[in-house]
């Protein structure tokens, strides 16, 4: 059996990111924070992809996470991040549980379209809500972090982002190696057999949908803390499309893949926008095209090809 180096790799990555905080310029710190926050949403997309479901509405929970934090902070005077995290998990899990009751009955394009529809409903509601800033959105106040009031908010958000992403990535990795994780691939390949092995594919998919939603909402919360602002674009379908784009870019072969994809996406987007301000979307499209042609299993397949990571059929 190949030795699992994931724990070591994730811990090293955390240590590097923490050490990097001292030397990273501000723009890079921000880019890393956003990449990790968005990487969580991509991880949520990948979690569902492994079960055969492609969500084109993950922006819904990205937005729910961001708005939960922003509304509690700005409208209800909650300034403690620990409370925001708990509230984000609770709200997103509740919304996902209710919507998942319906969505877990659908597969393929029907699932994809319904997730997008729910996301666009939230977008429509937010755009029409003047109390929530309509299309402009609104800003978050300064926060305390588990009782600590930092001098610079961004440093605390960076540390919080790194730690939360590390913990969620680790939990995801262990989940992936568990019976429930394997059953995701099994459901994708053959629901009838899963049913005849004594498990309910629908209940399992419902559970995975709630898990993915909570992860995406935490990504939304971290993104809102990093930017200090939320707006309805977080739920717009192009935002959800970007998450799917990044999932394909990174691949589904490992828990690190969504974060690598997200980081690369952020760099490509930043530089493409700088050098090709009017045609940057074309550059992104070209990158995706090249990835699909040369790395159909995503960037992570480069690591697998190098031999340091044994590919697992269920990951594809």
């Amino acid at each position, binding site marked *: 059996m190949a030795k699992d180096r994931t724990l070591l790799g994730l811990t090293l990555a955390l240590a590097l990111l923490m050490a990097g905080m001292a030397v990273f310029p501000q723009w890079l710190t921000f880019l890393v924070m956003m990449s990790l926050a968005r990487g969580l949403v991509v991880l949520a997309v990948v979690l569902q992809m492994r079960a055969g479901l492609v969500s084109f509405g993950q922006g819904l929970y990205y937005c729910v996470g961001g708005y939960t934090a922003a509304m509690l902070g700005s409208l209800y005077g909650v300034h403690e991040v620990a409370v925001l995290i708990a509230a984000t998990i609770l709200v997103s899990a509740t919304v996902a549980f209710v919507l998942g009751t319906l969505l877990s009955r659908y597969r393929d394009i029907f699932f994809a379209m319904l997730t997008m529809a729910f996301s666009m409903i939230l977008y429509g509601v937010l755009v029409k809500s003047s109390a929530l800033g309509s299309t402009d959105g609104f800003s978050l106040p300064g926060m305390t972090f588990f009782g600590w009031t930092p001098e610079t908010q961004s440093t605390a958000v960076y540390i919080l982002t790194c730690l939360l992403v590390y913990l969620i990535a680790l939990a995801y990795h*262990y989940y992936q190696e*568990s*019976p429930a994780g394997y059953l995701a691939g*099994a459901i994708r390949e053959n629901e009838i057999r899963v049913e005849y*092995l*004594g498990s*309910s594919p629908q209940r*399992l998919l419902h559970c995975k949908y709630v898990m993915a939603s909570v992860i995406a909402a935490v990504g939304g919360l971290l993104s809102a803390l990093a930017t200090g602002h939320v707006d309805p674009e977080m739920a717009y379908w192009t935002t959800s499309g970007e998450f799917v784009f990044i999932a394909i870019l990174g691949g589904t072969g490992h828990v690190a893949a969504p974060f690598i994809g997200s980081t690369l996406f952020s760099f490509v987007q930043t530089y493409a926008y700088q050098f090709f301000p009017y045609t940057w979307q074309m550059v992104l499209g070209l990158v995706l095209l090249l990835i699909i042609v040369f790395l159909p299993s995503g960037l992570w397949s480069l690591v697998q090809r190098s031999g340091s990571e044994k590919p697992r059929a*269920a990951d594809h």
Partner: protein
Amino acid sequence: MQPIIRTEGLCRNFGAVVAADNITVALAAREVIGVIGANGAGKTTFVNMVTGYLKPSAGKIYFGDRDITKLKPREVMRIGICRSFQIPQLFPELSVLDNLLVAVSSSDGTWPSFVKPLKSQARIDAAEQVLDEFEIVAFRDTIVGTLPQGIRKLVDIAMAMVSKPAVLLLDEPTSGVSAAEKFAMLDTIMAAVSGAGATVLFVEHDIEIVERYADRVLAFYDGRIIADADPDIALNDPDVRQYVVGSEVHRRQEGP
């Protein structure tokens, strides 16, 4: 002896087509029952109804004294009725061992663990024991999608046997397998299954196999059971010879 499975007046219609017409039958514990019939006679419909995949339009199914007519497939499996499929239902991108491990972990309880690893030594040992019983240990690490049909059939049945069911229903276990391999394959299956003490009902088109392995034959025609008896009697029944077997058995028994 009380039957382990009993059906009463089982009917199933698909629009105007009657796939099962008033099927009343009882299966005893540890019996090996061969089910024969032409295509469309209602054999697979019967298996699908007993295993919860299809709900009967009318009639009842009992497991012992328990009415299981409305149970879902996973609930039917949980009480001890498992099945294999005409087209093996496997996870083709996983290895044989991983297929078995998923089956073993699913038989642990109704809700799979989200934290503990799938590949525990206890599960690997249990999976390897089943692979050994079905003589497919050599394919342990092979990706299922690359296996020949005969081995896939064995993996399919091995997965059904993981939970040690009281009743095993095999839908055409030798279809797609070469004539030369059929008997060896059935020998392996029957040896593995009889060791577990399960009642076996197998759907089969090959009459030689039915004659050799079945204690009892159910012959289906037009959604009905037209014969239910020992192989010698059932296969020589005039209706069975006319509608199911043709003259093949008759010729073989009388010689050229």
